[in-house]
């Protein structure tokens, strides 16, 4: 993992919150490259011959870190994020928990440029997402800059958001062909690999409406991965699923997390899943981080009262 998180991020070099001292698991990306081979079906062999083009189902390579610097986001008079600072290391997998309205989802939406940043800076790698350099000055980003920056980020939505005007295959190939400029064949091959990975190889010609919620979400995950993002955002991805379908999607995401070296930000209400998937957990309330630490610590012996209350409420439900 070449780029270490904070020191080469931005000239300020504030280094974010003292996240690193509580998390000794974090810098070492727990993704041994070799463990992927047996778990990832087929695809792998093909991809090494072909190089990066039609590549392995799972994106690999250097994942950038993320850093929020005094980020403020308001909706009208409602301040959702107040001077928020935090850092996510390259390849780190972080889960955001907290009561609804605490700003977790807003963080993901800011990173996906679905919401506009009000104040502060958001770094992806060593570039700012919402600002760009022009004549030595930092100015608000234009569409082109946002387009460049979005190349690194992918998102899976709570409601899947598959395109109903396309079948499964086209949902997966449209982005790679139109945006990444892949040839049709390359995109189809990549889509097939990903559909096998999510266990839906036989649904390639289906229409989204013919799939169950769980299957739709698997397709949506494959669609996000097809763009080969380096940062993957998961926004309550199992909340809209029937209870019996939740585990399957969670298992899939856990496998993907283990076999890739994506930087992962996950908002969820499923605490077991959070424990499983993440290196670090951030507890949010009122637009600020209340507490953070490795999952064992947060779920086992939380030090803050608000965290304890929240966990109790969630477990009770």
């Amino acid at each position: 993992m070449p780029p270490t998180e904070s020191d080469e991020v931005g000239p300020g070099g504030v280094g974010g919150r003292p996240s690193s001292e509580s998390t000794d698991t974090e810098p070492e990306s727990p993704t041994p490259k070799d463990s992927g081979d047996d778990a990832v079906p087929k695809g792998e062999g093909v991809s090494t011959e072909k190089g990066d083009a039609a590549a392995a189902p799972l994106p690999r390579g250097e994942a950038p870190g993320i850093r929020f610097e005094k980020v403020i986001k308001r909706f009208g008079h409602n301040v959702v994020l107040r001077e928020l600072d935090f850092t996510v290391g390259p390849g780190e997998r972080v889960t955001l928990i907290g009561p609804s309205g605490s700003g977790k989802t807003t963080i993901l939406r800011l990173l996906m440029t679905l919401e506009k940043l009000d104040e502060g800076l958001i770094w992806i790698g060593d570039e700012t997402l919402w600002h760009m350099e022009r004549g030595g000055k930092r100015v608000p980003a234009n569409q082109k800059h946002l387009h460049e920056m979005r190349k690194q980020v992918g998102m899976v939505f709570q409601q899947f958001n598959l395109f109903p005007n396309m079948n499964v295959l086209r949902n997966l190939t449209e982005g790679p062909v139109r945006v990444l400029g892949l040839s049709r064949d390359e995109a189809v091959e990549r889509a097939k690999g990903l559909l096998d990975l999510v266990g839906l190889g036989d649904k390639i010609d289906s229409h989204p409406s013919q799939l169950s919620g769980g299957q739709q979400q698997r397709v949506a995950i494959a669609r996000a991965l097809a763009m080969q993002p380096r940062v993957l955002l998961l926004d309550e991805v199992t909340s809209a699923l029937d209870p019996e379908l939740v585990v399957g999607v969670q298992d899939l995401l856990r496998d993907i997390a283990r076999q890739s070296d994506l930087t992962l930000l996950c908002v969820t209400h499923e605490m077991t899943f959070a424990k499983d998937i993440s290196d670090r957990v951030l507890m949010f309330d009122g637009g600020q981080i209340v507490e953070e630490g490795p999952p064992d610590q947060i779920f086992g012996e939380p030090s803050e009262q608000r965290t304890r209350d929240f966990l109790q409420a969630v477990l009770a439900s």
Partner: protein
Amino acid sequence: MADVLDSYNQWLDGAWLTIQLTIFGGAVALVLALVFGLAGTSRHAWVRVLNRVYVEFFRGNATLVLLYWFFYALPLVGLRFTTMFAAILALGLNVGAYGAEVVRGSINAVPKAQFEATVALNFTPYQRMRRVLLPQGFALMLPPFGNLIIELMKGTAIVSLVGLVDLTRVSKNIQGSTGETVAAFTVVLVLYFVIAQVLQLFVRYAERRVDRMLGRRMPTEPSLGTIAAGAPGAGVGG
């Protein structure tokens, strides 16, 4: 009755003109509806103003007034059209304004989540529109477009008042020459009805295809929203 039906040549010629006006007027209306409807969804305020001006002016005017204006008033200031062209323009401009509201409303009615998915996949604004919003909005546009094309077909009858020999004019002529008032005007209404039903069939067919494409089922009876959209006066959503 026999006299009225004997002049079937005239009826056919009249029907053919009515159909031509419907097709050409519809084509003009469709182009205008797409151009100005998409302008109405623009991020730039001045492009949206363009949409408002076009829609309010041409939707607010009566087609017949527009036609009289093209036919009687404009030639006096040196702008001369053929009657056919003036008629197509008047019909197209008027129905196009309703259509523009339908297009704008339908695009805006595509769920926001779909737009967000296109951002997450890093589509350019053009690709968002072309690949996702427009195809999905199209399904919403079809039922009100169906209403509009029938309204346009009915609207073509105004050309009989500026001397074009369409179905309505033929009925008047035949009534004059044969004196069979009841038969002449019954036949013309039936002919219009047949044309409307055929148009209806095309629209239904298109709707079924689009629904299959989007994998969903539409209600068999039009909803209040659809009716309001076809209502001369307002578009969907507002």
